[in-house]
């Protein structure tokens, strides 16, 4: 049990929808994250996949306490983050950092690359002056940038280089845990592999633990030790990488895997595909029973009424489906 670095217990994040200007009445809520429990072990990468709007980014931000969750707990090395005050949280953020999806929006255009990477060090440490400069130069080299680039501004970098800057910034205060929120989705195909390799190298060099959020299932398989699949705010399946990709148990995971086109026309010509009907329902008006039942190709009567809970059907393989 001690090898668990971060754990979420019954974590929920409901965003209220209000009506009225003076007296705001709560008319509904969006269940972005709904009663989610999981853990990430030290040194491991947990991949988190799901389609847009399924709550994976919200889940990442709730772990970081960038959004305070509506209910549930998050434990980082045994400490509950959810009832911490802002000042305590500020200190604990030295242990956890985040890399954002869009390398164009997540860097301040008025700061130089050096200032961007130095900022966490200024906030959390007393390192200043030449020592700080050297440290920043070192960090830039670690992520594959030239240390002479420290005086440049973000617009002078390409997308891949900016993402390297974002990684250097996250790395600067030597965190234990990094939430990678779709770090490669905005990058060109030929650059994606560079960043994936960099993330892997850094993990082994600095003993990092990742939550890797992505929608590209082939990339997630490459990077993750374990994988969690989300659908409409709930984790529907969580398992070791090989188990999930070889014998996915949840019909949504199966459909998701079969929808990924494979870059080989010969393979594609013979591959069978499950094309899901319809689209995900609105997270405001969720269907009764299993969230997935309106699109499920194998659903039964019970799926319309009863919400399936996440059960362990094999060692380490959890599925939320009545039929698994």
């Amino acid at each position, binding site marked *: 049990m001690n090898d668990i670095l971060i754990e979420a217990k019954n974590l929920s994040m409901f965003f209220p929808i209000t009506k009225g200007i003076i007296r705001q009445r709560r008319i509904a809520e969006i269940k972005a994250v709904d009663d989610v429990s999981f853990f990430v072990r030290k040194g491991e990468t947990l991949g988190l996949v799901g389609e847009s709007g399924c709550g994976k980014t919200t889940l990442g931000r709730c772990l970081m306490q960038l959004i305070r969750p509506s209910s549930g707990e998050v434990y980082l090395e045994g400490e509950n983050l959810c009832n911490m005050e802002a000042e305590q949280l500020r200190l604990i953020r030295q242990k956890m950092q985040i890399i954002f999806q869009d390398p164009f929006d997540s860097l301040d255009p008025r700061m130089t690359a050096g200032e961007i990477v130095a900022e966490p060090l200024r906030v959390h440490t007393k390192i200043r002056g030449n020592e700080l400069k050297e440290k920043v130069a070192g960090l830039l080299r670690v992520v594959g940038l030239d240390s002479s680039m420290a005086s440049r501004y973000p617009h002078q970098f390409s997308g891949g280089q900016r993402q390297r800057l974002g990684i250097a910034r996250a790395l600067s205060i030597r965190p234990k845990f990094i939430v990678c929120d779709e770090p490669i989705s905005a990058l060109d195909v030929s650059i994606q592999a*560079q960043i994936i390799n960099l993330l892997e190298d850094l993990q082994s060099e600095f003993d990092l633990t990742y939550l890797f959020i992505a929608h590209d299932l082939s990339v997630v398989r490459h990077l993750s030790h374990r994988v969690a699949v989300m659908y409409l705010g709930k984790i529907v399946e969580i398992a070791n990488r090989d188990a999930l990709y070889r014998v996915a148990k949840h019909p949504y995971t199966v459909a998701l895997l079969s929808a990924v086109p494979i870059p080989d026309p010969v393979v594609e010509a013979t591959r069978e595909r499950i094309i899901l009907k319809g689209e995900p329902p609105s997270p405001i008006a969720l269907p009764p029973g299993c969230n997935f039942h309106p699109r499920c190709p194998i659903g039964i009567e019970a799926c319309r009424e009863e919400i399936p809970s996440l059960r362990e059907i094999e060692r380490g393989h959890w599925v939320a489906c009545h039929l698994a």
Partner: protein
Amino acid sequence: MNCPYGVRRESQKNMSLLQVRDLKTYFYTDAGVIKAVDRVSYDLKEGETLGLVGESGCGKSVGALSILRLIPNPPGKIVGGEAIFEGKDLLRISEDEIRQIRGNRIAMIFQEPMTSLNPVLTIGLQIAEALELHRGFDKKGARGEVARLLRMVGIPDAERRINDYPHQFSGGMCQRVMIAMGLSCNPKLLIADEPTTAVDVTIQAQLLEVIKELTSRLGTAVILITHNLGVVARHVNRMAVMYAGRMVEVGPSVEVYAHPRHPYTIGLLASVPRLDQPRKERLVPIDGQPPDLIHLPPGCPFLPRCSRRMERCSVEGPELREVGRDHMVSCWADID
């Protein structure tokens, strides 16, 4: 044999629908001239699906927009070349003539369905516009045809949804509306510019299936622009790979995937993880950064990132040459 019509039909089937030759589209900016499309040539047969692959900024969209003369001028300008479609050079005909072709003979689907539909007009009115303009429908008749088109692309409850506005549709449904609009005038050619980049994989699968099914039924040729190598593998007969405004490799997709001959294509295919193969310990990326189109090196634009560079590459840029049946590559190196 003695039926001239039969012979003609047969030969027409193999005739090229669109011939693009030496297309050049440049953008004149304060920072310098961007050669977004530089001497691009390709052929498209009737009913064929051509995949145009490349990374952002490689000129694949600009190349397609140039054919319909939809390049904003200034700063953009079609500097040279020709695009022969049904015997006419699209780059030289009058503005009135090209308007008869846009949306009618050649239709286009854009990447962002939400921003390419007009938010203050109902879906029905927007589709009917093309029907009234090109197919001579009156307002009443168009309504029935719009409903038929919406049913054709799989929009449930089509009659009622004609009066809905774009914001009442999801992203996937909006893209279906765009497909209905694109196919409304039975075009000979449909240009789909990253039609599924903005949607999720399960919706992507649905949309591509709709496009494939309908265009093969209507005999429409398709230019599918994408950066997703998986999508190309599934939906395309012939593909063209672009890099820095140039065509670097063209060929039947089965051939190009099995025997890529250009170092860029080889690198691209090697760098993506594949679900159907055992997990690799390490990915093999293409080194370096995407090209800066204003400061391209002399000679081959891929040179700074190429693993097979030779002295010759920095002196003169390679031209497309035939390396196999219908398979062309622009590279000096002989790669098998």
